[in-house]
């Protein structure tokens, strides 16, 4: 027991001296929380950005994964940390959905959104065996068959592509559950299942289907963005084809617990901006096929807030929101 007491005492002493010797931020390592597993896309973005921010601020940026609970665990860990600039995290679009589902009280207002660093629009992908050559043909078929004939997959229940699909169907004048959604552990299992003949549509981002598109197993029919994507110039937008005005995109952002001191916030935002524009980050995102998007501070918060409102509406109509 003495051992533990000593550790506690030493730890306390260190914390006090830290406060007493308060120097200019940052004077000790920064922790970056990633709410998703090691090895995924969000993890890679976090680690790379962390390495660049580290160069900029001159203190180590340690990336830690806090996974589970469809992102609730990690996002809570970011929001509940002290707003001193020593805990930041990668906040993902799920923060705009999980509170509507009633999983947590946490919303984007519990965070200081520092910057949005990436965005990938949703898409409409079908198996090559299905024989559709345009999204109009697919939509025609969906409309002509009874509800529930078509199945789609690509995220968990109430996940981003579930909401994306429901929003698209609503915009085409269909019931949001006209196409049955089959929850999956992510886009990759959803795509595999589609090629195996398990489901008909995967409405995830085209970047996630890239290898299967290259292998000519998956056909991208449309992108759910206002403009065509640079990486897929031949894939039309929904507006060009069916005339739907539905847009949805996942984004990744860097956020801190709400209430950051103003000077710390400015310093962090500047460091993230430099990191975003670094060659390492730009090349990495292009090579991985991830979309680049930059917005900081209030602009970034406005994007997050707008999505929150749209998702709330769609999720309520689709019966995905908690009553």
């Amino acid at each position, binding site marked *: 027991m003495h051992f533990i007491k000593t550790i506690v005492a030493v730890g306390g002493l260190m914390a006090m001296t830290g406060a007493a010797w308060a120097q200019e931020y940052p004077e000790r390592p920064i922790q970056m929380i990633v709410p998703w597993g*090691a*090895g995924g896309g969000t993890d890679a973005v976090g680690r*790379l950005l962390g390495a660049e921010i580290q160069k900029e601020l001159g203190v180590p940026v340690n990336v830690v*994964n806090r*996974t589970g609970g469809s992102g609730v665990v990690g996002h809570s860990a970011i929001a509940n940390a002290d707003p001193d600039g020593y805990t930041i995290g990668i906040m993902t679009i799920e923060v705009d959905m999980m509170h509507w589902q009633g999983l947590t009280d946490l919303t984007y207002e519990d965070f200081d959104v520092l910057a949005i660093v990436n965005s990938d629009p949703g898409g409409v992908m079908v198996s090559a065996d299905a024989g559709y050559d345009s999204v109009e043909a697919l939509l025609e078929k969906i409309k002509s068959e009874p509800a529930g004939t078509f199945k789609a997959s690509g995220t968990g*229940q109430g996940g981003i592509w579930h909401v994306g699909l429901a929003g698209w169907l609503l915009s085409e004048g269909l019931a949001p559950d006209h196409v049955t959604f089959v929850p999956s552990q992510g886009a990759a299992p959803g795509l595999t299942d589609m090629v*195996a003949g398990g489901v008909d549509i995967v409405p995830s981002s085209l970047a996630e289907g890239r290898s299967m598109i290259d292998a000519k197993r998956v056909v991208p029919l449309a992108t759910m963005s206002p403009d065509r994507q640079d990486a897929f110039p031949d894939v039309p937008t929904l507006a060009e084809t069916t005339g739907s005005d539905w847009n949805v995109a996942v984004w990744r952002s860097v956020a801190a617990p709400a209430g950051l001191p103003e000077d710390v916030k400015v310093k962090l935002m500047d460091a993230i901006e430099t990191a975003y524009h670094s060659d390492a980050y730009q090349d990495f995102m292009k090579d991985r*096929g991830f979309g680049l998007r930059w917005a900081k501070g209030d602009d970034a918060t406005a994007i997050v807030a707008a999505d929150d409102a749209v998702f709330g509406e769609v999720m309520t109509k689709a019966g995905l929101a908690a009553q």
Partner: protein
Amino acid sequence: MSIVIEAANLVFQPYVLLVIFGAAAFGMFVGAIPGLTATMATALLVPVTFFMDPVPAIATIVTATAMAIFAGDIPGTLLRMPGTPASAAYVQDAYAMTQQGRPEAALGASLVFSSIGGIFGTLVLITASPVLAEIALKFSSFEYFWLVVLGLSCAVFISPGSPARGLIALFIGLFAATVGLDNPAAVPRYTFGSVEMMGGVQFIPAMIGLFAVSEVIRAFIKRASDVRPPSTSGKSIFRQQATNLVTYPVQALRGSVLGTAIGALPGAGADIAAWISYAISKKFSKTPEKFGKGHVEGLVEAGASNNGAMSGAWIPALVFGIPGDSITAIVIGVLYIKGINPGPMVFITQPEMIYAVFIVFLLANVIMLPLGWIAIKGARHVLSIPQKVLMPVILMFCMVGSFAINNSVFGIGLMLFFGVIGFLMEENDIPIAPAILGLVLGPMLEQNFVTSMIKSDGSFLAFFERPIAAGLGLFSIAIWTIPLVLWLLHRRSARQSLS
């Protein structure tokens, strides 16, 4: 042939070989620390690979991973702290061998047969990737459901005692797997309002608790004496394994084949492969009663299967860019960054790259032997530490590992809780292994069942409508019913002969 030479030129460079060696040492180090996983080793290496050429970058990750997975068997064998769900399949036998004073024999077997399984899997990868990947693409949730059922059926075969106790353990594992939010309906279950509980029962802390902490508790309660049976390392590590290979050639081959085949399915992987292989090994063994008590036969088959599956996982990863596990997912990301886009085209556009990757696979599995030998020789000394010193140190490592998995104190609490559960189970002769199986396969069972039912609009018949699913389904049902029918017939004839 010129492509192979070109590929060899890419690999056999002093720099690349140095990188391979360094990565091997790193993987060995991380894997041998209880609680630190191969996935963690891989994720840590990713930023390093950004600054490398494609071949050394891939070589770094492949070598470190292969090594970390073998090294995970070291704490498993010596301290009953398995490194991966797959190695938990044979940890009971390996640890029993250590207690009998034969740790080197157990570690040697897992080293040599891991290497054999890995090389076999790589050869399949080189020769038959496109064909096998096509078959793997035919697997939907219906097929995976039956595969998981087969995996769960193993619980009955692998439990050393009565099948009933095996089932009790299995259901403990399945129950623990239901906790949390990550289920198909995304509904929080048994979370008691706690955010941490929403993450569910993290697998590594639970496994460390069930196996290692329960052993620590037992050591404290039983006041185990420090007298250990003398180490009978008469023969050298590799000579013992030559004997094993001569005695169990069928087992080694069967494990390699089955492991590679199941590993090639992106929704299954090494976890199911090793357990099924262990069960098959016991089922067809001439001495099934020795299993779980320090018998090397299951170790041979499941060890080969484990690494065969690791190689098999690359088949869908390289041919279609489909990750089978977290490690292949990381590597696919690195491949993209290096401009090697996985897919059928890469075999045509950049064949020298793909062959270079294959050569690296083979090298990684070969370099494992000498490095593993050194690690075994070094690690053995752990056992000469007195128990009263060793046990607290083990407990400390358990805590570090449980914390590191999600950087959360909750992991430590989970580990301690499952330590008590594991202790109580073993005190009541309930085996631990089936509980681990339930914990690993429970979420897969639920996911595949629920999604299949949604797809089929609630019709059970859909589980038999696709050819592969029907075959696997009938096979699973046969496994369960045939012994029952035989037993009934046997009883009936016995009764008739009585009367």
